[in-house]
């Protein structure tokens, strides 16, 4: 039964991954990352349930805190980038080009 939860977690995670690598809209990419974090949370909670041990819940809480911090920062960056480039396309940001 737990295996179903974990399988769902894997599927959601892979959707998140797909969103990160195939979309160019910064918001979608950002939310895809959030989706991956949520998939991880689901796995934590499911395994916590399997072992009847609440460490997984605590970890899920931590992940949410980190996600909140990340959201605050990432959105600040998005605003800044939009101000400068007037665009939401990740392909515009190619400073890493060799």
């Amino acid at each position, binding site marked *: 039964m737990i295996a179903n939860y974990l399988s769902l977690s894997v599927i959601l995670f892979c959707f998140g*991954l797909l969103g990160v*690598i195939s979309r160019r809209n910064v918001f979608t990419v950002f939310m895809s990352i959030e989706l991956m974090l949520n998939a991880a949370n689901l796995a934590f909670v499911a395994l916590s349930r399997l072992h009847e041990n609440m460490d997984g819940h605590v970890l899920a809480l931590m992940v949410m805190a980190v996600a909140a911090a990340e959201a605050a920062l990432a959105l600040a960056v998005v605003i800044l980038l939009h101000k400068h480039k007037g665009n939401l396309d990740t392909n515009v940001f190619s400073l890493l080009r*060799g």
Partner: protein
Amino acid sequence: MEHTVSYLVLIPLLPLLGALLMGLMYLVSCKGKAFPEKIYGIIACIGPALTFILALKVYFGLKGLPEDSRYLVQDVFTWIKVGDLDISMGFFADPLSSLMLLFVTLIGTLIHVYSVGYMAKDENFGKFFAYLNLFLGSMLILVLGSSPVVMFVGWEGVGLCSYLLISYYSTETNNVIAGNKAFIVNRIGDLGFVLGMSLLFWAIGSGGFDYMSLRANAEQIGPGVGLAICLLLFVGATGKSAQIPLYVWLPDAMAGPTPVSALIHAATMVTAGVYMVARFSFIYAEVPAAGTVVAWIGILTALLAAIFGCFQRDIKKILAYSTVSQLGYMFAGVGVAAYSAGIFHVFTHAFFKALLFLGAGSVIYALHHEQDIWRMGGLKNKMPITYWTMLIGCLALAGCPPFSGFFSKDEILFMALASGHGGVWLVGVLVAAMTAFYTFRMFFVVFHGKPRDEHAYEHAHESPKVMTVPLIVLAVGACFAGYLNIPSIFGGHLGVSHWLAPSLTEHHPHVSVWLEVLAVATSIAAFGCGIFFAWKKFYVATAEEPFYTGLANFAYNKFMVDELYHYLLVVPYKLLGTAISKSIEPFVTDGPVKVVVWLYGALANAFKVVQVGYVRVYAIYMVIGLSVLSIFISRSLNL
């Protein structure tokens, strides 16, 4: 058998500490205001003086022991331990090294004192004394080292100091070239030394590589290997002690300050080769053939240098060639297995040659760095102390009977005759006559006659006390050092030879008194002949430099040996170097490197394509990697 003491390490350490201290002081102050010369002078002289006191302590310590156990040792730490090779940084004093120690420290101290006067007002005063102390420390390591490897440390150290001090006046190109020449020629010799040492280790090194173990195992060496070891070590000695064919560096080494010529290139360092052969007497005694080679090379060097000495006009070069010549005598001595005679000549030579050099330095100092004897003359009245001390030195060098040089040289010649090397003896007598000739040629021209350069003569003056006192002390040594080893024919009992006996492997042949009388008589006759010709030719007020033609001109030009070496060795070597750098290096050596560089460039360009600059694409690469990894893991886990 051996006695462990704790003060041996201090002997090399004190001058080395002085060198370190003065070197640091010099480095600190070389940008700004220099420390006063007095401070350097005191530091420089304290170390050598203390080592002389310690050398006396070593001597009396050894004297208090029974004759067959006169060994003092001190192991400081284990230096190298690899397989069979177990070398400790150890020091070792036996009668041989104690004798060397005594005169090295005594003469070293005197020359330090003298240098304080001679080098006054030199801008690199501190550097000079740092080098000089470093030299003394290295020389003492050489003398006291308990194994050939430790000796080699000192051997290289003195070579380094010699290089540094020859090119001390480094603003002149010629001095630097002379320093380089000394260093490079010595390298050739050192290669021989290292090879000889390695061969020695290969032969009997497994039983311990200090002198005492080596001596105990010396009989196990085969005759062929023994000969090879002896000759290779002798190659090292020819480099350091300026013998044929590597003697060319020593005359050029006179470019250094005169006290350096006295201390390093006459009294101490150049005798290291003789000391080394005597130190390895236990091997040389096993291989008489090697001894014959050493003796002949030595005596031929003596002859060659004496010929050159007769034609030189630079006072220091004359003395330099006489040093080479006397070193040849020493090698003749150790070559005919008369090790104590050779070492005794080292001992007396150190006194009178240091005296002569310091006297020459005094003359040069008085004449404001004039070194050409044909611009001197008549200095007898102006510089009485220098005159009389130089006279003693010249008599000792020429081998005049009551002076030290007579006894030591006569002992070598007599031993050559007694051991059946008649040829060596004959050449030796000839060289003795030539020695007397060129010594007094120089002496008469410099001190007698009328002044050849009025201007310089007017300004000449006796040197300060700090320079004349060492001269007087050395003159006393040059007078009386010979009495330490008076042969039985004069009623003596060969004190030094008996003292050295436990360290050396030599046999005193028993020969008739008449042979001994013959040897002494010919020596005196040779001296008489030499001085007579010199007197006749140069003891005239108006003696001028003769005009050399033919063979004499050839000798004046030193038989073109330097030119021969230059065209035979240096030029082909340089051509080879140029050829290699022009043809082989760009293709064979640099080619592959350049190809590799180009390959990396091409590779980088190829991989640059994947560096698109979009973070998203990098994420794709990461996911591809993860996928490949997961495929690999699923297959290996059989999921």
